[in-house]
């Protein structure tokens, strides 16, 4: 679905992405890595929000490099950004109406069925919601674009464990419906629960890519991430 080949991003002297190559198919994929490894930059480069100096990004065989973000969005990639980024001056309902398309698979009604909590809060402003509600809203906003691929940048950040479990169910459901899912996470548990394949990012490169099951090995976790799942 999405092909990323030898992608480089530089901010002045800083070489953030140093040749990232990825191939995302129909099965959900996760990227994990410590802070400052370039995960968010990769999301933004795919979306066209930062300029890639070298390399290629293609969706379904069509090159995306150099397109403005709104064209990339219309080609079928939706980004759920880190920190939700809901609009303070729009209500929940207005957020959804902003992106809803007529006659598409995801409609405002379907969003309300999937996230009943949003229906209850439809008149509230985008920043009056709890963290979990904001995350649901950010995901709903992305789904209403009816994308081929949804990229989620740290969706579990700052959420209570019970909300994280709900989030895992939602993401799995999306993937079962045939939507491509690229999940960028620091939370190894979420990454392993959602994705079949996990890529590990270290200093601007994909160090390795493995089936999610193999990451249960604490030795591997220590080597690439310097952490052990459940050990903190």
């Amino acid at each position: 679905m999405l092909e990323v080949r030898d992608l480089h991003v530089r901010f002045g002297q800083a070489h953030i992405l140093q040749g990232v190559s990825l191939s995302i198919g129909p099965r959900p994929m996760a990227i994990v890595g410590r802070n400052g490894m370039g995960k968010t930059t990769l999301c933004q480069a795919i979306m066209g929000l930062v300029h890639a100096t070298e390399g290629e990004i293609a969706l379904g065989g069509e090159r995306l490099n150099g397109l403005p973000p709104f064209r990339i969005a219309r080609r079928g990639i939706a980004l759920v950004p880190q920190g939700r980024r809901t609009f303070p001056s729009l209500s929940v309902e207005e957020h959804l109406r902003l992106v809803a398309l007529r006659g598409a698979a995801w409609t405002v009604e379907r969003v309300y069925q999937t996230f009943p909590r949003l229906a209850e809060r439809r008149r509230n402003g985008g920043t009056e919601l709890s963290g979990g509600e904001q995350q649901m809203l950010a995901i709903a906003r992305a789904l209403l674009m009816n994308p081929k691929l949804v990229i989620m940048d740290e969706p579990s950040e700052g959420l209570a464990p019970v909300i994280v479990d709900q989030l895992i169910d939602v993401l799995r459901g999306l993937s079962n419906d045939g939507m491509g899912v690229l999940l960028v996470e620091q939370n190894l548990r979420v990454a392993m629960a959602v994705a079949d394949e996990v890529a590990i990012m270290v200093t601007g490169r994909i160090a390795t890519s493995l089936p999610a099951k193999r990451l249960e090995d604490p030795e591997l976790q220590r080597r690439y991430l310097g952490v052990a799942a459940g050990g903190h």
Partner: protein
Amino acid sequence: MRSRAAPWSLLGLAVLLALPWLLPQLLPQGQAQFWTASILGRAIVFGIIAMSLTFLATYGGFVSLAQMMIAGIAGYTLAIFVEGAVPRVVGLLGYGAAIPLALLAATAMGILMGAISLRSRDIYLLMITLALGMGVFRFIETNIAWFNGYEGIRNVVGPSLFGLDFRNALVFYHAALGTAALLYFGILYLVKTPFGLVLQGIRDNPRRVAALGYAVGLHRIAAFGVAGFIAGCGGVLSTIYNIGISPGSIGLGATVNILIMSVIGGLGHPIGAFIGSLIFTVLDTFAATIYDRDRFNTLIGLAFLAIVLVSPDGAIGVGARLRRLLTAQPRPASRVCGEVRSRPPSTRTAKEEPP
């Protein structure tokens, strides 16, 4: 607040409609007419121009100082093309054709301003629109062939609609009020449409709107076009009100007056423009009679200073503050109009995704 705005506005509109009949009951005949024509009529006309700025600032976060100039473009287009204006420049069209042409010119000028200032924001947007406004002002002031230079063009008396003459103060008052009401409710409707929602999204976070699949630049230019049309309506009315137009009416003083009206009224809701223009017009008219004739500007300045100090979100913020005080409700986080809206754009954009 938002849902309650429309009924209150309708009530206000009803009061304004009834005023020309109410005032003569309360005041002597001469004073009643003076209030209708010189205070309320003038406040409504300038309120329309101020509302074009409020629209851009409230919903898009763009503070444009070119709006008075755009109103002037409409006024000059009308004066140049309409029959009977002195001196005659083109003077071939009736009001029925000249007014639409003037509105078209103002809309086109608005779109042009939006396109030129596309990549600037905050203080830089303010400066570039001010520079464009002053450039046009100087050009008009020194061009004799088209604009008759410093003198301007006179005798734009306005049309006669169904036997109702625009020189009749009541006819003019109701035409201005009707135009203002149409534009005002048009804006309230527009900001609920997807176009309006995108505009508010751009104010909160332009990058996010782009990532949702919207062309931010085109929406921005379209918003300036809408504001240009609104300013054009005000420009046509003010030209008819003044029976002509001269460069002074679009100079720096006039430009700043529009900004003052918008700010003291409040940049949180379009109604602020009309409240601001009413306060401004009343002070501007009566300051000289209640304070020393040579120093009346001091009084006007102090009054504006007091309003902005007491309520940073302008006169409409006072209402919200009083209501909170009386009902002793905790401060709502963001929905009260003028709270989030009137924050300077820089605090909003600072929250954008870091690269």
